[in-house]
């Protein structure tokens, strides 16, 4: 994915925000707002995998759900470049919306709550096919079995209900369901986090293969940085609702420009007990998206902070070619990668 041009863009997220109302407080008169996603802009290239990482609660799932219209956005656009040229997916209605929905799928983080407990696994996987009338009964049946096999589910168990499956097995059901409609982009929210490493490797290889075969684009949310590094072409780092760094994967991992990214890299546990290691333990509290700190949201925990960081909010800017970072000191700091 080195020569990116405008033509290669599949999706543009523009100034997307999502706020949740927070219950009234005895002390504060007006209802407060929780800015889960705060003015995020991103471009996603056709056929790439864009990794999305960041602190728990920083807005990754919310961003994903806004993109697939699982929830409504407070503000912003999601321009989808399909066969008919660019359309704002968030504006679509009726049959056009239905058509585009097939193209934009999501694999959900919590397999338990995202699978309907009253439906058999077979029905869960075939539902999107039936709703969209994608083939005859027999074709659908064949397709369900093929997908189930591809994700490593036992065909003999498709008539069971989700509760009789283990956590990892349920996650595979979610993946199968998302694949059913041949989407062009899938938001994978912690799609492999619940899987043991060997199945995880199988599923990652599967996602890779499907990308190679059908050109599927992924937005890949995960907290396991080694998985993110493996699967992503580019990676975006989020912190308290905002994108703080975005770059090609190799670049981001070897030369991070944002102190938060550096802290993330240092916290990855090494799979070797002889390397129980020193990490940058972030001091200070996790900031609240209800009343975020002044200036740079990361400044209270940043070991490199300067006075300006407490007052001025850094914009996401292209510090080097294709390497975006929102830090006042991006040029002067030399940070450690993974």
């Amino acid at each position, binding site marked *: 994915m080195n020569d990116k041009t405008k033509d290669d863009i599949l999706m543009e997220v523009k100034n997307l925000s999502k706020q949740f109302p927070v219950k009234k407080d005895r002390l504060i008169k007006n209802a407060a707002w929780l800015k889960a996603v705060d003015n995020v802009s991103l471009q996603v290239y056709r056929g790439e995998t864009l990794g999305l990482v960041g602190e*728990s*609660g920083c807005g990754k*799932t919310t961003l994903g759900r806004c993109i697939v219209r699982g929830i409504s956005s407070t503000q912003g656009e999601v321009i989808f470049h399909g066969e008919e040229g660019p359309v704002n997916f968030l504006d679509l209605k009726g049959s056009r919306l239905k058509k585009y929905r097939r193209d934009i799928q999501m694999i959900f983080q*919590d397999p338990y709550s995202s699978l309907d407990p009253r439906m058999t696994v077979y029905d869960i996987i075939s539902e999107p096919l039936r709703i969209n009338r994608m083939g005859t009964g027999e074709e659908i049946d064949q397709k369900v079995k093929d997908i189930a096999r591809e994700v490593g589910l036992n065909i003999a168990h498709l008539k069971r209900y989700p509760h009789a499956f283990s956590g990892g097995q349920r996650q595979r059901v979610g993946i199968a369901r998302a694949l059913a409609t041949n989407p062009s982009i899938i938001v994978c929210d912690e799609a492999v986090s619940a899987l*043991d*490493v*060997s199945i995880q490797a199988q599923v990652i290889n599967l996602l*890779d293969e499907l990308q190679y075969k059908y050109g599927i684009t992924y937005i890949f949310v995960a907290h396991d940085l*080694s998985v993110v590094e*493996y699967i992503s072409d580019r990676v975006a780092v989020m912190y308290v609702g905002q994108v703080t760094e975005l770059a090609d994967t190799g670049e981001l991992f070897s030369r991070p420009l944002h102190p938060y990214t550096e802290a993330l890299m240092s916290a990855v546990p090494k799979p070797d007990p002889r390397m129980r290691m020193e990490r940058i333990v972030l001091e200070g509290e996790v900031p609240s998206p209800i009343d975020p700190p002044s200036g740079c949201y990361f400044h209270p925990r940043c070991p490199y902070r300067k006075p300006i960081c407490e007052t001025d909010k850094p914009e996401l800017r292209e510090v080097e070619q294709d390497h975006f970072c929102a830090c006042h000191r991006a040029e002067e700091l030399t940070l450690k990668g993974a």
Partner: protein
Amino acid sequence: MRKVNTVDDKLLIELKDLKVHFAIDEGLLKAVDGVDLNIYEGKTLGLVGESGCGKSVTSQALLRIVPPPGRIEGSILFQKSEGGTEDLAALPMDGQTIRAIRGKEIAMIFQEPMASFSPLYTMGNQIMEAIKLHRTKDEAEARAIAVEMFKKVGISNPEKRLDEYPHEFSGGMRQRVMIAMALSCNPRLLIADEPTTALDVTIQAQVLELMKELQKDLGMGILFITHDLGVVAEMCDEVAVMYLGRIVEKAPVDDIYHNARHPYTQGLLRSIPRIGSNLNEKLASIDGTVPVPLGLPPMCGFHERCDRKIAGLCDRKTPPLVEREPGHLVRCFLYGEEAQEADNE
């Protein structure tokens, strides 16, 4: 490096030939099929293995919360704080005794946070209920403890967050609330089922530190279930590898990583993606899938996927779990006399 199983170690719980079988339409599903494990005070035992191999069901058995039609056999000997042992496997499922142990003596962090909270009550309600049951009757004090625990697991605005409902929390935040809840009653045994799967690495580091701290202070024993071998390396003293309802290898943590014997364990270690290595290659994975534990004949459960299987042996007999080196147990014919015999035939 901490040592494993020295004479000073105090046994906290002992599983002996634990079996959990589900009678379902298709037959008898042997989710857990003869597991022996010891957990010691102040020590962490890691339990790893393929999805569906029976890790969660094992831990459900410890708390006696296996859903019907699950049936438990074998014994679960728990060392009571006031002395003496109690066989949890023999207790009635909803009796006084087990309910007094649940939450207070043995706490559990469940794999799927959303499934373990009621959507109808605030998080504060749910965590304070546990605290009031086991630690204090005083409402204000219970709330103070809850706030303190929220802070410890890195949840900002704890006062406000206590009054919110589960759906208002992110996946990782729910997981952290559950950790806070499990730790709030100072349990002697903590069962952590994939406790950090939904957490980013910095919060994960913070939570792991918190567990280690409490372990040091309280001498808590931990059963740590995870598929993250980085976390296992970080946290565990000893590791048990499970496959198809059985333990196939158990060893001190260093041995597992540097001297793995079972082909399945070796395959697991090969499958870990490591930062900065072979990005253009396909990840190594173990081909095939785990058979379902329904009406299986005696055999090594792994033989179909094993590239070192011994025909006529691994597919006919169930290998025994044998101590090959001090503290290092392996269930594999490759290391026994049977292998040589098969070679000679």
